């Protein structure tokens, strides 16, 4: 494993129940609102968590007594499991709250539901919802920490972080790297969170897909837009293959899956024409044969399974930082850590 670069924030050490210094946010809603230093701080903390838990396999006891609620209004397997496991690895208690079995099906508003959970004394709420902005709405009504685990097509900050973590772990500094985000940009929260995170850390981002899924207006955000994967392929250091979100589309944005795969699927032939050390990412679940062929999904350049492990590390870091702020007040200041600067 290559060692990550040092960030501009003071290095952090694992020490008792105190979380790392330099973190002041009560919530994690989106990468757009974080600075490059804050993103690096989360990534460095995640490195620490991964090392301290022997590759996310063992427990450390920095959040014992804390209670985390998973408030998932939209189906999820891996993100929910990943947050649960991350919380348990830190010694916290985890409560899973499923919208379908709750009072929500009796007509209670989701804010009332969340306020009830808050009244039970939880430290943080991990929320997923089909509607953009719902975590922000919760954050404005609750005093506990709110972690966005995906709000519709808007943001999925821990997915963005784990993608960036995985790239950094394999290739080192993000600065100067060219990252292609390919596929359903219009409906992808992963694309948006990657875009903010990557550009803040100095990577060049290319969005690629048909015009029905990739609007040219994205250029206004300082990224390149292409509708031709084969044209941009030789320039990319990383390709992140985004799932076609059939469930979010009003009308089918391309004539057939076959035609989409012909134009945009990452296959063996395209892999040959890419850089030798091209890194391939895909936020699960993947549609094998649509965004990526099976052989490419399982090839050595693919980090798909590393992403899942790294997701645990990143979520441990995020939970630790957010709960730290919740428990210790808004500004955490440790003179010991200052001394190491």
């Amino acid at each position, binding site marked *: 494993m290559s060692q990550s670069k040092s960030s501009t924030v003071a290095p952090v050490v694992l020490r008792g129940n105190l979380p790392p210094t330099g973190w002041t946010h009560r919530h994690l809603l989106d990468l757009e609102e974080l600075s490059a230093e804050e993103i690096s701080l989360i990534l460095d903390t995640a490195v620490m968590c991964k090392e301290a838990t022997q590759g996310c396999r063992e427990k450390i006891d920095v959040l014992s007594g804390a209670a985390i609620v998973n408030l998932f209004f939209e189906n999820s397997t891996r993100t929910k499991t990943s947050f649960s496991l991350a919380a348990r690895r830190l010694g916290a208690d985890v409560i899973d709250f499923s919208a379908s079995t709750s009072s929500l099906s009796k007509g209670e508003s989701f804010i009332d539901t969340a306020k009830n959970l808050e009244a039970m004394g939880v430290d943080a709420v991990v929320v997923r919802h089909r509607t*953009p902005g719902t975590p922000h709405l919760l954050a404005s009504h609750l005093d506990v920490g709110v972690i966005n685990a995906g709000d519709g097509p808007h943001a999925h900050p821990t997915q963005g972080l784990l993608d960036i973590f995985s790239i950094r772990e394999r290739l080192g500094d993000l600065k100067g790297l060219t990252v292609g985000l390919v596929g359903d940009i219009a409906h992808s929260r992963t694309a948006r969170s990657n875009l903010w995170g990557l550009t803040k850390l100095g990577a060049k981002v290319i969005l690629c897909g048909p015009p029905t899924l990739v609007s040219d207006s994205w250029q206004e955000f300082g990224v390149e837009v292409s509708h031709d994967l084969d044209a941009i392929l030789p320039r990319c250091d990383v390709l992140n293959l985004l799932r076609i979100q059939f469930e979010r589309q009003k009308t089918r944005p391309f004539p057939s899956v076959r035609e989409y795969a012909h134009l945009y699927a990452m296959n063996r032939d395209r892999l040959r024409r890419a850089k030798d050390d091209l890194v391939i990412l895909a936020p699960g679940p993947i549609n094998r044969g649509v965004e990526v062929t099976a052989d490419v999904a399982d090839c050595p350049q693919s980090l798909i399974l590393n992403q899942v492990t790294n997701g645990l590390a990143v979520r441990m870091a995020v939970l630790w930082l957010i709960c730290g702020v919740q428990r210790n007040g808004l500004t955490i200041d440790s003179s010991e850590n200052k001394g190491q600067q």
Partner: protein
Amino acid sequence: MASMLIRGGRVVDPDQGIDRVDDLLIRDGLIMSIGHDGSQPLGKVDETIDAQGLIVTPGLIDMHVHLREPGREEDETIETGTQAALAGGFTSVACIPNTEPAIDTQANVEFIRQKASRADTCNVFVVACVSRERDGKELAEIGQLVEAGAVAFSDDGSPVYDAELMRRAFEYCRMFDKPILAHEEVLELSHGGVMNEGIVSMSLGLEGMPAAAEEVMIGRDIALADVTGGRLHVMHVSTAQGVDLIREAKSRGIRVTAEACPHHFTLTDESLRGFDSNFKMSPPLRTAKDVEGILAGLADGTIDCIATDHAPHAPEKKLLELDRAPFGILGLETAVGLSVTRLIESGRIDWPRFVEAISLLPARILGINRGTLRPGAIADVTLIDPSHEWQVDVNSFASKSVNSPFDGWTLRGRAVATIVHGKVKYRLSS
């Protein structure tokens, strides 16, 4: 024989081309005179109002108000909505028929008129449905509704989707010289949207409603008004291109009028970045370029009127997730402040044009005997303090709901007295 003298205000009455400091005399609920030449004795005056420093205008008219009653009394009632109108300086409102049931029969029109009369607040003019049950399939009994007192027709909340039905409505309404107030939206383009489609919706991941959804329908209705000779009134125009379409249609002599809402000349889609449903309305807040187009349209008269689209929703509805929260915001109690601040203080329009847009032209479009201070006219009068600076506080609103995006804003200009039929119905407590 009640009489009232409004002394020393700046009387602005575009109907008579008057804009001067003068006295206004009211007797028995009617305008007696502006000024007093002294040739006849003034006679006994029961009440004198000192209007120095104030603007004296014909009563303001909001031709686009959702009073919600019958059916949605948790949001607003005829009584609370008309009290909000008075507090905003409006002496008349036209209420839109998307209630439950919709206003598509004589009995329903009569219900509203009775409730309004019992509330004894401001004048309520009834807009009735174009289509039976507002379902866009068959024409409502337009002739009977006119007899019952309906002043215009609208399926607002929805467009009249069937072009053939819209054509027939234009033709049929010609018989009564009534306008059709049109909500312009191509639904398959805007379906599922919560805000303007653009770079803000892209970055927020929110479903967008493209400007084209409004413009395509404005274009259709202009063509239908042209072919039928009917009267089209475009409600809440929100895009610069929409204003251009209306300007061009007017230049060709097509009978089209239009209104714009204060929020559409004040806010842009950038406001949605906080995901606050108080910025969600239909048509949605557009871009700075569109705001500029609306301002230009108001200045050159392409957009005839200012109307609020006052759309109250109970707090629990607006607290829902953005896609489930309903469209619409309050308008009555902030319209004057926003107009003075955004339009007059900025120099975009002058006071006579403002009064024309919010009193004279709405009266003419609706064909109601209001909007003027001519001797003999019904004495609906609004007194506005143009320099009154105040902070919007939704909790002090007369409206039953609080869904205003302007809560906490500091505005200049406010109605200080609202006079309906010669009686002071509202006075701002100082």
